[in-house]
């Protein structure tokens, strides 16, 4: 008989490139498919969220000014790192009730999705830009640019794939992110943070919290330094209040209703454009 005692891991939030416990000291238990508590997770507070936004804001200028090529490489790097830890993710999903086959499929699609968006990093601009033939002696062009800090409330279905399908397009478009992991199945989100941590993303560019949307959605949607918010939950009341709060600073709102992230419709450059602004520049033509 093996007498060695396993090391049980404790899980933290991921803010500004560091793993830290919630300032509130609160945690919540996660039960496995047998109903046994095997893991505790941090229950992030409003203050944790505000910290995350502060660092996400700081990271905007650095991340958005990376070259498109570099942003693509970093997304690809995340895919590489995830591929290397595939087994762990499948196991974690499986442990919390997702069948082995489904878990395998989810992790594989997640990796492919990262590669998909890595490829878009230096291409969507050309597709959605325009040189505008104005009727005066001016050179005039329009290009997509990042919006800033995007707050994302992840879906419960496909906890890993949902999270990555929302983060990747916003991130590749030059935005920084504060993301609340799936409430029901948050473990892989925090493990994914470890993948991010090993993939050369700048500190603060992606922040991942665990906790409850009933508590945090209000703060996600009303924070004045957040530019856009994404929600795809089924709670229509909550969706409405998120959108009402968002109007306080004219946030860009994206409510992705019943999107199946497992299929190809769960990915497109239009998701990148949801987190982009069009900027138009004029200059006279003359001597």
């Amino acid at each position, binding site marked *: 008989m093996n007498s060695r005692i396993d090391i049980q891991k404790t899980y933290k939030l991921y803010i500004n490139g560091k793993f830290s416990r919630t300032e509130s000291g609160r945690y919540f238990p996660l039960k496995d498919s047998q109903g046994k508590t095997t893991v505790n997770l941090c229950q992030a507070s409003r203050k944790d969220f505000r910290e995350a936004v502060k660092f996400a804001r700081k990271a905007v200028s650095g991340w958005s000014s990376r070259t498109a090529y570099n942003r693509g490489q970093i997304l690809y790097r995340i895919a590489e790192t995830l591929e290397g830890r595939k087994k762990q993710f499948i196991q974690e999903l499986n442990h919390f009730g997702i069948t082995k086959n489904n878990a395998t499929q989810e992790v594989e699609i997640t990796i492919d999705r990262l590669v998909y968006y890595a490829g878009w990093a230096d291409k969507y601009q050309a597709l959605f830009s325009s040189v*505008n033939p104005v009727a005066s002696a001016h050179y005039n062009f329009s290009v997509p640019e990042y919006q800033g800090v995007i707050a994302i409330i992840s879906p419960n279905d496909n906890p890993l794939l949902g999270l990555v399908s929302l983060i990747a397009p916003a991130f590749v478009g030059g935005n920084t992110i504060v993301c609340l992991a799936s409430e029901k199945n948050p473990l892989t989100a925090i493990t994914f943070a470890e993948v991010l941590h090993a993939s050369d993303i700048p500190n603060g560019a992606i922040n991942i919290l665990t906790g409850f949307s009933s508590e945090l959605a209000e703060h996600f949607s009303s924070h004045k330094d957040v530019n856009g918010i994404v929600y795809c939950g089924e709670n229509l009341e909550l969706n409405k209040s998120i959108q009402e709060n968002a109007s306080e600073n004219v946030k860009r709102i994206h409510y992705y209703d019943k999107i199946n992230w497992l299929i190809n419709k769960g990915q497109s450059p239009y998701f990148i454009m949801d987190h982009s602004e069009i900027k138009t520049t004029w200059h006279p033509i003359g001597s």
Partner: protein
Amino acid sequence: MTNQTDFITGYSPAPESTNLIEIKERYPLFIKGKFSEPQSGKYFSTINPATEKKLSEVAVANQADVDFAVKSARNAYKNVWSKMPPKERSKYIYRIARVLQERGREFAVIESMDGGKPIRESRDIDIPLAVAHFFYYAGWADKLEYAFPGRKANGLGVAGQIIPWNFPLLMAAWKIAPALACGNTVVLKPAETTPLTAMKLAELLQDIDLPPGVVNIITGAGDTGIKIVDHPDINKIAFTGSTDVGKIIQKSLAGTQKKYTLELGGKAAHIIFDDAAINQAVEGIINGIFFNQGHVCCAGSRLYVQECVAEEVISKLKDRMDTLIIGDPLDKNTDIGAINSKMQLKKIIEITQSGKDEGGVLFQSKCTTPKSGYWFKPTLISNVAQSSRVVQEEIFGPVLAVQTFRTVDEVIEKANNTPYGLSGGVWTDKGAKIFKITKQMRAGILWANTFNKFDPTSPFGGFKESGMGREGGIHGLYPYVELS
């Protein structure tokens, strides 16, 4: 309108004739292709802000009227417009453009009378741009399959559109043209102080035989507007106006399926570097803030001048301000017309006073203003802090806040330090510096070595609290389609 100006311009009066225009005594609502009496039974006056004299009266649309307009738009969508081959849709929009062009002078004169803007601007900018907008989007109607990579575009249904008083007909064109091109039908509400060119447009739509209900134009104040916003059978809301009202609308639309675009306020930074062509920059500053009495959401209302040329720029600016001719909007020499309404004038006076109270130094053009009507002299306020109201808040009048800076990074920081993000301007002879600035400024439209230029092919719209969505260009199609 009298042909004599009672203020000193140094020029003989050169008034545009009002002979060829026809303004009816009253305009009912334009619904289902007909002018029909409002069910509210009420009318309100629209006046000439340069004389305070009544021009006409327009109807107040109540809930029943809004319902009728939306129903008529819905029926037209279902039975006519969505079924019409796109190339035929396109021809109707071309018709609007051509007839509007033909009647341009009439529209220009009425625009200046109803809104107070100089005839030179309504004649050379507002109306020709409105025409161009219809002409541009007409051509998109049968080419939408090329506009959205990998996707198919479908119309949304009924678009509710609420427009402001600063560019009345032009804003109507910005709203109606892309909506129709993408296959939608329209319920449009012009602003309560400037309804006349919209009602003239309604007459024009009858003349070109646009199928009834495809465009419905109803009048009223904010009350009517919110009834459009909240109407359950509308698929899309397009609003241009203040950020305050935009937020109310966004909140009101929370949790609904309606798509929306908001073109809201601005507080554009206009940056002048020491290596700029100073004389041209001064013209740019003047055009940036005094165009249309400063009633422009993208006006260059925050001037940032590099310290070493500040004295020269400001002195030249003041000299130039003294040559501006303020007065009769219908006079072809007029540079600055009337403030659009008494309410707006009050607001401009109040906020300018606050600038003075906060320690700002005021300079105003020497010109005299007419006795009747609403007027405000071109004004420059210096010695203001970044936190001062005249630097932070949109004034929407001919008032320019002036600050100085030393370095590129400092001015970018200052320029972006506002909740707004509609437009910005930069003057320098260095190309690399232009792109550094325009790349880092958080605004939707950036003018380099020019300012306040508009074109139907060029997308317009803001970042941050200046709104969302674009109007104009290929990007201006997105708000009016559903992609599948």
